[in-house]
């Protein structure tokens, strides 16, 4: 009886640790909610930046920087690349870099950046 009580207590402690930290299954739900809130705030900041009247080149730079931050946040945290095997990152980012490179070259051929 005393042994069973001890086992039950240790099980409860382990469950409490898992529920609080989500150690067995990655980050906790609360962490993801906070990330989503941060992404929503960044989106709001982006929209406000277009309304404020900052000169066009700087607005574009600011929006692109925020876009990249949001992109990397979703890929590394929501898509779990941060905690997964690096081969997955290699596959995805290779495709991404190839895509960006090819289409930057294509746009340059059409003199997009000269205008």
């Amino acid at each position: 009886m005393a042994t069973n009580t001890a086992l039950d207590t240790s099980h409860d402690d382990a469950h409490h640790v898992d529920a609080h930290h989500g150690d067995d299954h990655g980050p906790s739900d609360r962490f993801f909610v906070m990330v989503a809130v941060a992404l929503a705030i960044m989106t709001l900041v982006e929209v406000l930046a277009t309304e404020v009247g900052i000169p066009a080149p700087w607005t574009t730079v600011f929006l692109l920087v925020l876009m990249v931050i949001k992109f990397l946040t979703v890929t590394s945290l929501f898509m779990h690349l941060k905690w997964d095997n690096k081969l997955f990152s290699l596959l995805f980012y290779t495709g991404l870099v190839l895509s960006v490179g090819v289409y930057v070259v294509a746009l340059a051929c059409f003199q997009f950046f000269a205008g």
Partner: protein
Amino acid sequence: MSDAVLDHAAAAHDDHDDHGGHGAHSATGLSNNKLAMWLFLGSDCLLFGGLISTYMLYRGRVQEGPNPNSLYNIPFTSVSSFVLLMSSLTMVLAVTAAKRRDDRRTRIWLTTTALLGAAFVGAQVFEFTSFYRRGLGFTTSLFGSSFYTLTGFHGVHVTVGVIMLLSVVAILLRGRIPGDKAEVVELIGLYWHFVDIVWIIIFTVVYLIPS
């Protein structure tokens, strides 16, 4: 002796999970299904890269009809962007619930994700019909063609995602998913998050960056 047997069984179970449950063996030690999904997403970057760069080229080519500045309703599109962002949150909550073997919460979050995705598609359809009524058809100008093609392809991706989500919910209700349920939900989650990150780019490049 019995502890060693238990440890071996636990290790085998962990390996079983790492190798994608009941999926095929992989030379890399990783799930073939997950590798294939990442490879697909990497290739889908090339598709959307082409569509986005074509839009960037043709955005200023307004031979007739309205131009972007007179058309876009940023507050409305911001709300639909927020909806899609929240669907990414509910999707990741579904994945964590699936990993905890909490089937009920998995179904709830998957259904919520599907509803939010459907709401986003509905907002896109409303936006398209609004633009069409204001004179921007698919063949009106190069801007119109590239805009509708880009956002239309994205909308189709979202729609396919919604269908997949609802299908998985239905199959979960019947308890018929073979292998590791968590991996199935995770794979759909990867697709859904990809759709969201493409929209992050589209929203910025198409709607926010001044033309």
